[in-house]
């Protein structure tokens, strides 16, 4: 499982996936606890037209910025749409999701080589990661993790008990906005590598598996990050091995996601069968920051 990574392009793909896996795993815990899975899924679709337009205007480098603009636009429109009491936030999300996604499909369908481009946008191009893109991902990861570390107490309070947090003087609306922006940043950073469709798996599945294995937040977060990174490495190695030695052309992004789902299944079975884990899930530590 180490042999493929002697090639420079495979090394870059591996580093990119390790960073993204750990980052998305960490942020995914927040998504899970705040029940934002649908919102996140919508976000992964609404960045699509941004990805396409960004690529049209500036090539590979434009994808990040195009996605960023689309994600920011989503956050603003979502806030505006849900101001109307008559429209619930999931309805607003569904409207935004389909509108943006259709917009992306229409834009991409104008292009020649339609199918190949669409596949790349939807499922990513992990094997063509450039060094500059790696640096960008690193900066995003540092920014997101740094923000989470600074805001960990307000975020925990506002996620567990929003009304109590408001009563204690925390600006819960601002914290909500910050969380949405952090999730958007992770989606944007992941889009080039794993595509708009597979980002959601990176965010949700490691966190869900970690939650099954433990009831301690102090354990869930590192476990989710580790599972995300591990799946990135294993998925990449498996797809490389299958393509080279078995004549099976497996898409890297898809293989990474299937590896994650396999982890999730193992977590489900282990939690049901291993008694030590059951007690770990029930008891939690008194010491925490």
């Amino acid at each position: 499982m180490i042999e493929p990574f002697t090639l420079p392009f495979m090394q870059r793909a591996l580093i990119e996936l390790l960073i993204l896996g750990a980052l998305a795993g960490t942020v995914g815990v927040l998504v899970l606890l705040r029940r934002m899975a649908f919102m996140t899924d919508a976000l992964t679709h609404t960045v699509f037209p941004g990805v396409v337009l960004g690529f049209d205007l500036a090539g590979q480098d434009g994808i990040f910025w195009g996605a960023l603009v689309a994600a920011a636009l989503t956050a603003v429109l979502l806030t505006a749409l849900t101001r109307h009491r008559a429209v619930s936030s999931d309805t607003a999300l569904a409207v935004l999701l389909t509108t943006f996604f259709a917009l992306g499909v229409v834009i991409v369908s104008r292009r020649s080589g339609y199918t190949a481009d669409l596949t790349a946008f939807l499922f990513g191009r992990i094997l063509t990661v450039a060094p500059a893109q790696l640096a960008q991902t690193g900066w995003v990861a540092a920014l997101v993790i740094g923000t989470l570390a600074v805001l960990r107490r307000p975020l925990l309070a506002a996620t567990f008990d929003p009304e109590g947090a408001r009563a204690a003087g925390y600006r819960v609306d601002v914290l909500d906005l910050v969380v949405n922006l952090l999730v958007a940043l992770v989606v944007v950073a992941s889009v080039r590598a794993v595509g708009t469709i597979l980002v959601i798996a990176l965010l949700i599945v490691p966190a869900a598996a970690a939650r099954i294995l433990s009831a301690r937040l102090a354990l869930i977060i590192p476990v989710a990050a580790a599972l995300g990174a591990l799946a990135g490495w294993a998925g990449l190695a498996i797809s490389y091995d299958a393509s080279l030695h078995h004549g099976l052309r497996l898409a890297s992004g898809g293989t990474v996601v299937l590896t994650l789902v396999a982890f999730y299944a193992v977590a489900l079975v282990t939690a049901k069968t291993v008694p030590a884990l059951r007690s770990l899930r029930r008891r939690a530590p008194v010491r925490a920051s």
Partner: protein
Amino acid sequence: MSVLELDMVSVAYGAVPALEHIDGRVEEGEAVALIGPNGAGKSTLIRAILELVPLAAGTITVLGATPARARRDVAYVPQADTLDPQFPISVGEVVLMGRYRRIGWLRRPKAADRTAAREALERVGLADRARDRFGTLSGGQRQRVLLARAIAAEPRLLLLDEPFNGVDAVSEQALLDAIAALKSDGAAVVISTHDLAMAHLTCDEVCLLNRRQFGFGPTDATLTPDNLRATYGGHALELRGDQVVVTS
């Protein structure tokens, strides 16, 4: 200086008035029960005291300042069943949240913070459950944990929203004891409830509410059949000794 002063307070949701002309004060070591039927505006008044809803008219003064300025000295206890029982957090971590404003964002909790959290949990009789996950406790025990979180904040004004709803007898007694201890330490307490017997047991004063105020004063003098009938509208009421019965 009163801990809490309500001066002709009115609150409206859009054009719909939720509370009108609430007037009264609560002193150190005093407990007041907000009494009224569902939808009377009890929770709205608590939210107004926390400055979570804007006032349409009147002023609220907490410890001589605006509620926002006095926030550090005010603690709020929500209803336990509004919180997600699946949340991966321990009882000890929930109580420590009461210290967050003192701990700040970055530094680690000091020994004093951990001691305050442990003592608060002892006060509600759950010191041995600190390591258990919050959601594994009974509803009444969860309510006690939330009270412990408030106690850990060392408040001078404590606001409780329907703390006795669906709470077993053991937890009810533990809540009563902890509230009594806070009062004797000099804290002022506001409890919203529709349980007249609990109001009698815990509170020196009552505020009868149903959109507007139907009485604010010492419990015995204010909890009269006439006042209660006015507050609850068409419902018939009887006072038997110190027991109050509401029938619809």
